């Protein structure tokens, strides 16, 4: 039992060491040549444009259901006209970043782990090294840069369409005037909320993609290993999204409010 626990702790420490090592190499890869510009552009397209549909759909429906639920609750206080405040504050501060993060974790985190995992088990990563390419510079750096910069962009889009979704339900179902909704949306938002909604996705994007890359590059054991790596990447990056969201929110509250 004790020996098992020691083994588990050793394995966990090894994972952390490998993860930190990969991040250190990534930082070096960002600031020193060679750079693989084409791969960076490809990853911006794959992670950013590729995730647009799922983020648009999630954002819109979240805004719609939020308006619907808020309308019922606010009706109890005769405050249906305040629905915009609730929708905007919830979406910009929390639901936009977190739901976008979870969607990207499901779509991109799993994809990265599966792709790099397959390359590991078929010796393509070893072939890259044999051909004189550092796999971190070629595969990890472009993905982390794309995650770091595209998740905030996706979050802004998600939050925007979320508020439009809320507007559709507020005007169409709750029968509140359009100008009342938008006034309420603006009143509900403070500049700190906007900053929070913009800063958090950088951390979430970084966590999702770096976990996907780490899990992918640690894949062993053939196709079964690739399946395990994909599942692990989704689970770990989804949990990381929620945990990082909490800690960054706590930090930003201390710093900004």
């Amino acid at each position, binding site marked *: 039992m004790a020996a098992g626990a020691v083994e588990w702790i050793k394995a966990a420490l090894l994972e952390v060491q490998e993860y930190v090592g990969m991040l250190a190499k990534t930082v070096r890869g960002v600031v020193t040549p*060679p750079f693989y510009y084409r791969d960076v552009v490809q990853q911006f397209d794959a992670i950013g444009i590729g995730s647009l549909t799922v983020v648009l759909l999630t954002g819109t429906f979240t805004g719609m259901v939020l308006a619907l639920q808020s309308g019922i609750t606010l009706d109890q206080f005769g405050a249906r006209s305040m629905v915009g405040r609730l929708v905007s504050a919830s979406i910009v501060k929390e639901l936009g970043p977190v739901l976008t993060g979870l969607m990207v974790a499901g779509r991109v985190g799993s994809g990265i782990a599966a792709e790099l995992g397959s390359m590991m088990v*078929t010796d393509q990563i070893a072939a890259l090294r*044999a*051909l*004189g390419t550092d796999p971190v510079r070629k595969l990890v750096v472009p993905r982390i840069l794309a995650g770091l910069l595209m998740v905030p962009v996706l979050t802004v889009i998600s939050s925007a369409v979320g508020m439009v979704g809320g507007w559709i339900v507020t005007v169409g179902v709750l029968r509140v005037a359009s100008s009342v909704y938008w006034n309420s949306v603006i009143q509900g938002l403070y500049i700190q909320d906007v900053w929070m909604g913009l800063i958090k996705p950088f951390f979430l994007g970084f966590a999702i993609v770096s976990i996907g890359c780490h899990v992918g590059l640690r894949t062993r054991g053939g196709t079964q290993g690739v399946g395990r790596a994909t599942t692990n990447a989704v689970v770990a990056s989804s949990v990381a999204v929620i945990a990082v969201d909490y800690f960054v929110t706590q930090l930003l509250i201390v710093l900004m409010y």
Partner: protein
Amino acid sequence: MARAQPARRSELLDDALGPGGPIIVFDDVTLAFDEKVILRDVSFTLKTGHTKIFLGASGAGKSTILRLILGLLKPDGGQIFVNGERVDNMSEDAMMAVRADLGMVFQEGALFDSLSVRENVGYKLFEELNWKPADANRRVEEVLGFIGLAEFIDRKPSELSGGQRRRVAIARAMAAKPRILLYDEPTTGLDPITSITVDEEIIKLRDLEGVSSIVVTHQLRDAFYVAEHTAARRSSEVGFEKASPAKCDEAEFIMLRDGRIAFEGNAGELRAAAARDPYIDAFLS
């Protein structure tokens, strides 16, 4: 870190590593994974322009030797010299320069799925050596012509047969004109006819391009074919014939058993050893 270029050598070292010089040296190399010893005091020398053929049962440590040469693994003990550079304690960055002069054909090819045959073969030229596109494309067409797959240049690896994938892997390994080529089970899983075409590519590269090679295999027929045949250019064609005894001496067999070298010598000596050693006899039969 600049892009990897072949390691610079002085004229003296270039002379020493010329034909017949020691281009790869293993000196008492030992490697273990946890409790399991993979290699135990392995020593050998590959001379420039020669071939070493590693035989042995699965798990005997044959492929590990190739990974040690490439610096993909580091030994626990002993020294490894490649192209005049000591690589057993070399950093990953410094190793990139040594790898610039090495080509490796992985088991199953390890071609990049998302790239075409052209991009796979020219990968090092386009991405690492920054050749002009026209020059790189010319070289890719030349090596694909050399291995007889010119018409497959725009296909994806998934559209090729097993044998074609191995030959494209050979083309990729030779595209940047390395002085050393390493082959990991190049014919495993291929039918006899296709295996012979792969063997002939190995012979052509050795005899016509002067490449030093290490072949890891457990396909005895292919091992003896590579060791006992030679390639020669006849007008526009390349022909293959039985090698002279002197030429046969340039291809040496090493048999690994439980991480140790159980036999080292040419094809004739290997056959003779089978009469004395029941393990070698069982392996050859």
